């Protein structure tokens, strides 16, 4: 600036001009700062937004992999069906919000209008099923059973059906080869929810709106393998959705196939026999309750003893998994989950828990031996056992005099175990324990009870070992209720409550005595017991049971085998194990299960068994039947079915008959044997995706078998 004084220039104006200049440049600086913040600091985020802004994705769904049985027979595969679906976005654009369209549609499809309307409404906290829990922008399937004629009607009169489409779509099919429906093992699919999409966004297998997700069973465990990756064609679009170019596209990668160790033929027989066993039990009179047995539920597991692989697993009551395909109807959903449904969705082989009854005695025997008792010692098998004024009956057995532990297993003598457990309880300090050894409880834990077996199916339950810690926790949680109820102790229940209130935190003599024969608070699942009996058969290895055997790429080239893994060793010496094994063979030949194995070719296929009958408060007894040969463990349980051998005996025998080709007279017909040895090899999948599978016959000849033969 010039220092010559100028007219019209006062210091005030100069100061003001400088102020203006400072103001102006701070404004520009603000702009620069903000520009830096948007472009450099947060640039990546906006770049992503810009990308999603101008890219429209067209999704080409991946074909979901099949679930195959051990020989390649598809248990779950895909089928092309005509799916009629409605686009909510289009319907809501119509004046009456699509009411008239849906009404017309109900006429064409022959479905009640209300049902269609329910199917296209969105799920929220207040809306009962059926409702749509997928994305509101995705076409909502109304039916996947449209006939060609119905589809044509809809397509030809498209002006009458705005927002409605009828297109061939690959949908899941649970083929039930040979009537082996395996519902709970296979599980089911349902559309992905918004939450899941958000969660899986940054994972290795992000989900798309159109995806279906496995909700239970194998469909859930192996979901990411089965699902594959949907193909996405990305188009660059402008603000009006006009395509202005094609961006990076990914081709659809079909899902892999899961080969299971399930043998559909054995599975079919297991299911049929489980059902038959329950039907038979309902014809048997129960003296205790004065009615016939209810036999309301049951489960059976057929397991390879040397690997823990599951050859068959059935749970009753069961259902048709195809009910889920294409969206479940309201009626079906109520039938599957309602109060009166008896919960067929539960896989009782891994989710049903009950007291084990006498099949627990292998654990008590091990506990006694490990506590120092001689296996071949002499233990009094009396008809009853007294502690003070309490009498513990010898339920399944009678007075056999002094017998060995092996014989006690054979005849299932309760009093032998009562006595041992009582002595052990006393040794541990009785009501005032000091550093108790707790052999009987420790052994149960060592056998893997009270925790999951680790089977490759979701939501396995743990069961329960009612040890001291559990008693304490349980008492803490319940004492208030017990003490309140026990205050006016006059009836039986209140007396129990009073007793529990006062001493429920303690391990009482009666608890230990009951526990030793598998009664009381112990809970086990069929799969736990199957794993234990398999371990006894295989020399002591507790395998994690598996259903999946291998994951095979769709072209059959890449195979990932799922190898058996173990989660423990039985705490038995080889000698004890042999002795128990012998005793269990004795059960099948001269003990409690002998009447069910009459004529069995024991010299060729040594059979081992243990029966169990668990008391359940307020219900009829639960029957358990645990059996094994050197190859297979077959374990069946029937809830409210009476004794184990009585209810499940014939069914288990028939499963063995089928496996080994044994007839009722004990002759072995090797040609009739379904699986005299576990299936070791994997079925071959051709490079074109076809699978060579043997056709299989249904167990019952009444239904024509459409699903046999080669499947893609």
């Amino acid at each position: 600036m010039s220092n010559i004084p100028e007219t019209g220039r006062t210091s005030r104006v100069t100061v003001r001009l400088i102020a203006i200049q400072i103001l102006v440049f701070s404004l520009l600086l603000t702009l620069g700062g903000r520009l830096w913040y948007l472009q450099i600091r947060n640039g990546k985020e906006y770049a992503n937004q810009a990308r999603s802004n101008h890219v429209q994705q067209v999704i080409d769904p991946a074909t979901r992999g099949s679930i195959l049985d051990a020989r390649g027979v598809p248990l779950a595969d895909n089928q092309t069906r005509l799916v009629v679906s409605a686009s909510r976005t289009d319907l809501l654009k119509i004046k009456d919000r699509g009411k008239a369209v849906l009404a017309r549609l109900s006429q064409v499809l022959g479905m009640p209008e209300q049902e269609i309307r329910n199917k296209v409404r969105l799920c929220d906290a207040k809306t009962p099923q059926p409702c749509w829990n997928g994305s509101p922008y995705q076409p909502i399937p109304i039916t996947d059973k449209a006939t060609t004629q119905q589809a044509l009607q809809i397509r030809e009169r498209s002006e009458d059906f705005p927002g409605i489409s009828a297109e061939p779509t690959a949908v899941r099919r649970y083929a039930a080869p040979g009537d082996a429906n395996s519902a709970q093992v296979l599980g089911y699919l349902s559309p992905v929810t918004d939450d899941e999409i958000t969660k899986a966004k940054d994972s290795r297998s992000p989900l798309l709106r159109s995806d279906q997700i496995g909700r239970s069973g194998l469909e859930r465990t192996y979901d990411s393998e089965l699902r594959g990756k949907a193909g996405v064609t990305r188009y660059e679009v402008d603000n009006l959705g006009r395509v202005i170019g094609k961006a990076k596209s990914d081709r659809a990668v079909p899902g892999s196939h899961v080969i299971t160790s399930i043998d559909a033929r054995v599975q079919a027989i297991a299911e049929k026999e489980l059902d038959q066993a329950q039907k038979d039990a309902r014809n048997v009179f129960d003296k205790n309750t004065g009615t016939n047995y209810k036999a309301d539920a049951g489960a059976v597991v057929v397991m390879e003893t040397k690997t823990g692989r599951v050859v068959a697993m059935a749970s009753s009551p069961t259902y048709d998994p195809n009910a889920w395909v294409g969206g479940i109807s309201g009626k079906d959903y109520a039938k599957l989950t309602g109060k009166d449904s008896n919960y067929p969705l539960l896989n009782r082989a891994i989710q049903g828990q009950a007291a084990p009854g006498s099949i627990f005695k292998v654990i008590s025997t091990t506990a006694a031996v490990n506590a120092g008792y001689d296996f071949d010692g002499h233990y009094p098998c009396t008809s009853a056992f007294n502690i003070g004024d309490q009498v513990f009956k010898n339920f399944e057995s009678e007075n056999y005099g002094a017998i060995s532990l092996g014989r006690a297993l054979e005849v299932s003598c309760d009093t032998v175990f009562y006595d041992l457990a009582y002595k052990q309880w006393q040794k541990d300090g009785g009501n005032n324990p000091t550093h108790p050894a707790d052999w009987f409880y420790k052994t149960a834990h060592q056998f893997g009870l009270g925790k999951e077996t680790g089977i490759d199916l979701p939501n396995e339950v743990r069961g329960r070992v009612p040890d001291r810690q559990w008693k304490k926790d349980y008492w803490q949680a319940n004492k208030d209720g017990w003490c309140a109820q026990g205050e006016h102790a006059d009836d039986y229940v209140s007396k129990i409550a009073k007793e529990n209130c006062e001493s429920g935190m303690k391990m009482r003599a009666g608890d230990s005595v009951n526990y030793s024969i598998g009664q009381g608070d112990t809970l086990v699942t069929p799969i736990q017991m199957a794993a234990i009996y398999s371990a006894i058969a295989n020399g002591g290895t507790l395998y994690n049971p598996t259903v999946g055997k291998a994951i095979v790429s769709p072209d059959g080239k890449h195979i990932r085998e799922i190898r058996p893994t173990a989660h423990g060793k039985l705490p038995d010496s080889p000698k004890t194990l042999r002795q128990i094994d012998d005793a269990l063979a004795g059960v099948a030949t001269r003990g409690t299960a002998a009447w069910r194995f009459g004529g069995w070719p024991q010299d060729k296929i040594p059979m081992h068994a243990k029966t169990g009958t668990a008391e359940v408060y307020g219900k009829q007894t639960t029957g358990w039947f645990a059996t094994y040969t050197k190859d297979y463990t077959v374990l069946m349980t029937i809830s409210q079915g009476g004794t184990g051998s009585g209810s499940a005996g014939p069914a288990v025998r028939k499963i063995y008959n089928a496996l080994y080709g044994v007839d009722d007279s004990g002759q072995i017909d090797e040609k009739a044997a379904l699986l005299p040895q576990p299936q070791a090899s994997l079925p071959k999948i051709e490079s074109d995706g076809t699978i060579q599978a043997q056709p299989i016959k249904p167990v019952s000849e009444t239904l024509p078998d459409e699903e046999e033969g080669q499947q893609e």
Partner: protein
Amino acid sequence: MTASHSSRTFSIRRYAPEPGAWGKITARDSVVRKLDWILLLSCAALSLIGAVLVHSATRNRTELNHGEPYFFFLRHLLNTGIGLALAALTIWLGHRTLRGAVPVLFGLAVVLALLVLTPLGSTINGSRSWLAIPGGFSLQPAEFTKITITLGMAMILAARVDAGDRPHPDHRTVVQALGLAAIPVAVILLMPDLGSVMVLGAIVLGVLMASGASNRWILGLLGTGVVGCLAIWQFGLLDEYQIARFAAFANPSLDPAGVGYNTNQARIAIGGGGLTGSGLFRGSQTTGQFVPEQQTDFIFTVAGEELGFLGAGLIIVLLGVVLWRACRIARETTELYGTIVAAGIVAWFAFQAFENIGMTLGIMPVTGLPLPFVSYGGTSMFAVWIAIGLLQSIRAQRPVSAAR
């Protein structure tokens, strides 16, 4: 500077031989040599960058460009040319000559603005601020009032100071000047063109500050503005949707389909540009036409997306250079009139640029204001170039100072 020139410098011009054309242009006291070339070149650069950005924003908009991808590009260059010519005319006339014509120009601008309110006016984007003239052209008279309000107020405020009567304008003069300013402001409020009113407010403030009017007036004016805004807010003079539209720049969810959408898309476009941008004509937001009004009000988003922080930053720097030169001219002129005019122009450019870029960056409310030189639009281009002409002529007509 050549030797022959320097010998001539000391000659008495009247007796010297008539110089040739080149000599005239390069003569020490020639207008060309007195021009602020930095200012001029910066403005030209901004206009050319503007032409390229306008082209990028419009080459695919067939519904706008009549199927000719270069339609807007050429029009923008034409506008720039006309603007340059108008600037030259202004310099040739000289601001002192124009000072005499200010009442006429002021009246003319107000009349043009009033015509907008008659059936001759047309409404674009909810604001009736356009005047359709024969030949398919349209005019935005509010742009011219930005010049005339500066000139008019400067004339009144500087009259007695430049005459040497008093050091600062007195209260009466200030009242007169404000009264004069109120006329175009009122007319434009009726359109309503809120953006232009805000610019006029900034000009009035800048003019008053530069005039040396009492601090009370400056603070009073600012206070009135704040109280006015609060009153509008409190007494619900605007409908809720109008307030929502106004506030949507900060919270796009207030008006997600309207202003919020623009703001959001603009921010995505600029943010997505990163350091170096996606390259000219390669911006997906621009190519996909996600940002509305992109060749005019949202032109800065094209720069942000396709040229990145470097390119968009360059525009801000160039604007900074223009404002720096303008401030310099305001400081160095000897007459208060020239100072006030230059300061008014600084306030105008600075506020309009800040508002325009600020709204694309999401820190200012969305109003329909063009970015000086860069945005497409004839009237605006003419007005800013006339303003440059005024600045140049103020600079040219002051005595050359020793310390340049």
